[in-house]
């Protein structure tokens, strides 16, 4: 693509008369189009500097130069128009885009506002009203004039898929004086005035609007929804009144004061100098790119890489033919090819990879690889996937896992007073880590290979890669930290295998960083679930029986989805005692992407169903949600769901009491309601998988006390956690401790950084290593200073006399390290239950989540006003990390509940990038959030702090659902909740 920069409008017009040209102003809309696959023009003709800028006012008329940025118009305080601009894209984009460009683009949210402002354009082809230009664009837009009478009442509203920065579902604009000007548009809705509605009587207005508004369906919202909300918004006054805030929680954690420490990595992160693995650059480093499948399901007939290999600058092309070992990976079983040989099963499947001297060359080479495919029938629905006639993705068919149990009497429903049955559906949530998958690989002088890619368990990555590369594990050094967010999405191998193959073949360092679009298509997601649940209680409200039937969509490969289903079923009764239970879980393969681990790991999906059922039965019995739960709550001495003995320190009744005492229940108003749900979250991998951990404490030559631990820093706060637990026990400063993590070349295996197990591992490592380490340090110091044993203690920076209060060490750690470098290593198992008949967790943590929400009566949209998370997970290791995990988990839970889902159509992703995948923005956050921590443990509880990675997300969805039901009388059973179902 080339760019012409004309020096006059006449010259621009001449250039634009040539084929293959396209005018560009700010260029922001064009680039979004290109990313969506709109064909690139051959030549851009830049209008920069040729068009007028500036805004002036004459009476009710506003004149705006075409090159004026959207940002400038937004801040010009033009009635209606400035308000509309504030809802278009985001500020950084509005500073680049121009108002002429957005009109020239022919779509966009602004146009309805311009239409009601009777917009007139001045163009190089003469003056024309905006509607005429939209119907038949002619000439270049020079300026526009909108007319907004001073006394006019204005209507503006954009309805999107989240609170802000969203594609439009529909926008409405209105100018009311003695006449009425109304328009709709936005997104796929053709921008238009509504002449019939403009002259309708007030009584007939809503019905006329419903009849007149023409809007299409899209994968996200129906035509009916669009028309209904637009009619509501244009015909009814804004019904939202300010919400009165609730009383604050007196015991909420506060982010300052005692226990608040600045994270050791924070300054570098804020300064942009933090060493992300995808930022690593060395001279002569090659750049890698991966070729993904062209079809969701197809046989590969042939792969021809000759033209790509011949492209100057290409240093290596790899396919399945270059895989020396087992061409398969997967944490549970190895069913996913490193590089596909004969079949592709989803559009993210890797087929080939290229390393070249730069990104552009690597990208160009991908287009030169020719793959001949024979498409196969696409399996798009997990139910249909299990039909005997369905095309099979794998030799053993499409049923990846089936498990379940029956306990008690399956016919106990016969004795029930109340039975609730429904099916709850959950989304294909995307992890959405801001740093997509990537890193680098570099052959080492000794013939070994370094692979540095963000991950969650280096030792297991090494095991998987050793099999694929046919190398001894000790020939591989795997660095997995730091990484820019993971949430389970970097637990499975991501780009490591193609990257390693490229580095080995090119015999050179190679870096590779997935584009977001590629990450969306290729990365694992949260397996969507359909949970049919039938729950019964007697007339007094005591639970009698429950049936659970879960069907999950694994997508193409297993990864950890079988364990997700199993974990979901282990949480099938939540924290309640139900004597008669039947569970069944099935996991089906489809061509809808591929799924795996995600924070919550099935437990949060199951909690959605269980906690809604509980509220529904409570209502059926006439009991309040707290009383019903109290009646059925498990006690501290009850066994777990699988009959296993559990660790002590059950705090469910305390959490339930916190919910009962919540100030949110009384802070109500129109359209406002509060709901609750309990958290009951198992931690660790369970009885059956290997769940080893360990680490080393040593004095380094520079006097830092190094803690070597194979866990990974993904943002959750492993580094401050290690500093906290070690320094507290040793009596030194946090800054004396240097955590070394996530590197198989340096750190002992500590197991995976998943399953809320990190908090326990860190604490236990300190418990096991610090006594001996302190002893060895003091022995060495006494010897060095010729002091008697027992006369010294560790202090910040070194050792001090036990009898002295001095803050200054008499021997610094650096001095001591000149002669002595104590090292203590520990290895241990994550605590396990006594049950091996199934995979059972041992350490559970408790919580209660309360959501106070408001529903917009005109659009059905839900906003979270207050989110209170009461947690009980043992002592807080590091306050900032604890608070961050709960707040961040809650935010992901809110996204799961209200906005997030990755859609597929015929095996192709509809949701291709962050323009259509709706992670919460800052405007979607719960307006206020409060977290409490019950840090107590039972006397003699030997298990210390519990990890809190999954506690925040655990019960957000049912808390919101139960609040919705208070407003609407109906429980939303499809997440994300569809606003259409919540309209009055």
């Amino acid at each position: 693509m080339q760019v012409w920069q004309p020096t006059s409008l006449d010259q621009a017009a001449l250039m634009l008369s040539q084929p293959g040209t396209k005018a560009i102003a700010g260029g922001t809309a064009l680039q979004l189009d290109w990313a969506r696959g709109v064909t690139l023009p051959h030549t851009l003709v830049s209008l920069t500097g040729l068009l007028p800028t500036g805004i002036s006012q004459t009476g009710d008329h506003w004149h705006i130069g075409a090159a004026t940025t959207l940002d400038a118009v937004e801040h010009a305080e033009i009635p209606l128009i400035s308000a509309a601009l504030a809802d278009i894209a985001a500020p950084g984009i509005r500073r680049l885009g121009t108002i002429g460009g957005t009109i020239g683009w022919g779509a966009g949210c602004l146009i309805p506002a311009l239409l009601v402002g009777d917009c007139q354009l001045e163009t190089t082809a003469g003056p024309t009203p905006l509607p005429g230009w939209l119907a038949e664009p002619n000439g270049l837009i020079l300026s526009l004039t909108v007319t907004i009478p001073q006394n006019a009442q204005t209507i503006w509203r954009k309805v999107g898929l989240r609170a802000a920065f969203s594609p439009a579902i529909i926008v409405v604009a209105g100018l009311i004086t003695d006449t009425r000007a109304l328009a709709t548009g936005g997104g796929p809705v053709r921008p238009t005035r509504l002449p019939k509605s403009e002259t309708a009587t007030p009584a007939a207005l809503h019905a006329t609007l419903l009849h007149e508004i023409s809007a299409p369906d899209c994968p996200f919202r129906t035509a009916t929804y669009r028309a209904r909300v637009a009619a509501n918004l244009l015909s009814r006054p804004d019904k939202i009144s300010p919400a009165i805030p609730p009383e604050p929680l007196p015991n909420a954690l506060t982010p300052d004061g005692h226990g608040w420490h600045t994270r050791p990595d924070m300054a570098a992160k804020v300064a942009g100098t933090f060493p992300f693995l995808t930022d690593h650059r060395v001279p002569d480093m090659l750049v890698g790119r991966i070729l993904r499948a062209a079809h969701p399901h197809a046989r590969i007939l042939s792969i021809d890489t000759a033209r790509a290999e011949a492209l100057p600058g290409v240093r290596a092309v790899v396919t399945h033919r270059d895989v020396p070992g087992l061409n398969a990976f997967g944490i549970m079983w190895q069913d996913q090819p490193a590089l596909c040989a004969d079949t592709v099963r989803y559009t993210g499947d890797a087929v080939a990879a290229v390393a070249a001297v730069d990104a552009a060359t690597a990208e160009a080479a991908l287009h030169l690889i020719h793959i001949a495919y024979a498409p196969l029938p696409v399996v798009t629905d997990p139910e249909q996937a299990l039909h005997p006639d369905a095309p099979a993705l794998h030799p053993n068919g499409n049923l990846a896992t089936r498990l379940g149990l029956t306990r008690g009497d399956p016919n106990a429903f016969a004795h029930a007073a109340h039975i609730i049955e429904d099916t709850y559906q959950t989304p294909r949530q995307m992890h959405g880590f801001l740093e997509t998958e990537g890193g680098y690989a570099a052959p080492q002088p000794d013939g070994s290979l370094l692979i540095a890619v963000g991950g969650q368990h280096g030792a297991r990555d090494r095991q998987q890669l050793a099999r694929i590369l046919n190398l001894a594990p000790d020939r591989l050094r795997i660095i997995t930290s730091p990484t820019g967010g993971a949430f389970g999405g970097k637990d499975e191998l991501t780009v490591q295998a193609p990257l390693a193959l490229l580095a080995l073949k090119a015999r050179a360092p190679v870096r590779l960083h997935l584009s977001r679009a590629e990450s969306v298509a290729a990365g694992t997601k949260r397996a969507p679930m359909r949970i049919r649940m039938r729950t019964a209680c007697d007339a007094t409200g005591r639970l009698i029986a429950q049936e659970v039937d879960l069907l999950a969509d694994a997508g193409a490969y297993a990864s950890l989805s079988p364990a997700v289903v199993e974990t979901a079923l282990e949480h099938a009764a939540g924290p309640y005692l139900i004597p008669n239970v039947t569970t069944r879980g099935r996991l089906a393969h489809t061509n809808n992407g591929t799924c795996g681990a995600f924070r919550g790991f099935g437990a949060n999906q199951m909690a959605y169903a269980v906690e809604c059922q509980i509220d529904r039965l409570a209502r059926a019995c006439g009991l309040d949600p707290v009383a019903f739960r109290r009646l059925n709550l498990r006690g501290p001495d009850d066994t777990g769901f699988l009959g296993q003995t559990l660790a002590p320190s059950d705090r469910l009744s305390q959490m339930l009491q916190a919910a009962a005492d919540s100030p949110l229940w009384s802070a109500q108003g129109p359209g406002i309601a509060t709901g609750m749900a309990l958290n009951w979250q198992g931690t660790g991998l369970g009885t059956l998988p290997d769940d080893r951990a360990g680490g080393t404490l040593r004095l380094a030559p520079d006097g830092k006390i190094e803690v070597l631990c194979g866990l990974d820093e993904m943002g959750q706060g492993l580094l401050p956690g290690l500093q906290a637990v070690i320094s507290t026990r040793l009596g030194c400063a946090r800054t004396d401790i240097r955590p070394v993590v996530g590197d198989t070349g340096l750190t002992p295996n500590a197991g995976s950084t998943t399953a809320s197990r990190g908090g326990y591992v860190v604490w236990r490592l300190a418990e096991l290593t610090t006594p001996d380490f302190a002893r060895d340090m003091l022995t060495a110091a006494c010897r060095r200073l010729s002091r008697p044993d027992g006369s010294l203690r560790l202090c910040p920076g070194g050792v001090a006399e036990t009898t002295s209060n001095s803050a200054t060490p008499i021997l610094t750690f650096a001095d001591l390290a000149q002669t002595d470098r104590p090292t203590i290593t520990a290895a241990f198992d994550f605590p396990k239950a006594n049950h091996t008949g199934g995979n059972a967790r041992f350490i559970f943590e408790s919580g209660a989540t309360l959501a106070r929400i408001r529903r917009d009566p005109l659009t059905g949209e839900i906003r979270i006003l207050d989110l209170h998370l009461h947690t009980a997970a043992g002592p807080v290791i590091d306050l900032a990390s604890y608070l961050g995990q709960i707040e961040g988990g809650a935010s992901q839970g809110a996204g799961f509940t209200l906005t997030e889902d990755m859609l597929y159509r015929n095996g192709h992703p509809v949701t291709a990038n962050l323009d259509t995948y709706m992670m919460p923005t800052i405007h979607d956050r719960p307006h206020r959030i409060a977290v409490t921590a019950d840090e107590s443990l039972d006397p003699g509880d030997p298990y210390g702090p519990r990890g809190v990675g999954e506690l925040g997300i655990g019960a957000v969805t049912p808390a919101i659902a139960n609040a919705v039901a208070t407003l609407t009388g109906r429980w939303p059973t499809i997440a994300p909740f569809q606003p259409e179902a919540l309209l009055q």
Partner: protein
Amino acid sequence: MIRFTLNGARVSLDAPPTTSLTTLLRETLSATGTKLGCAIGRCGACMVLLDGQAVNSCLVMAFQAEGRQITTIEGVDQIAIGPALKQGLTQANAFQCGYCAPGVVMTLAALFTNDPNADEASITAALTGNLCRCTGYHSILRGALQARALIQALP
């Protein structure tokens, strides 16, 4: 040849005119403080200052950068409020993984330079286009408010 000023230093380089500024920074100049999150202006990780205004560098094409003053996270200390802004965000542990941090810092650098008294509504409006997946935004808001206090105390 494309010429612009990067953090006060003149830069001239050869690149196709439609190459994104993010690519020029990260690939050509190896200035990796500016992050790449989506490449379509939908996450804000690549935010830089273009003549003092915070914009998504992934949406700025090389020819559009010609002759402009570009400030990236590597040059944030050249902005008067830069050090105080960083200090406030750091003390508040505003971030977790930190990948969104440079973009947030640049957005806030422009905001507080223009208006050291920006209220919470202005801060959230300014951060509309900066996605964070780890924190849920409350810690970022607390950091921004802490930074504002430090900025207001500057002489």
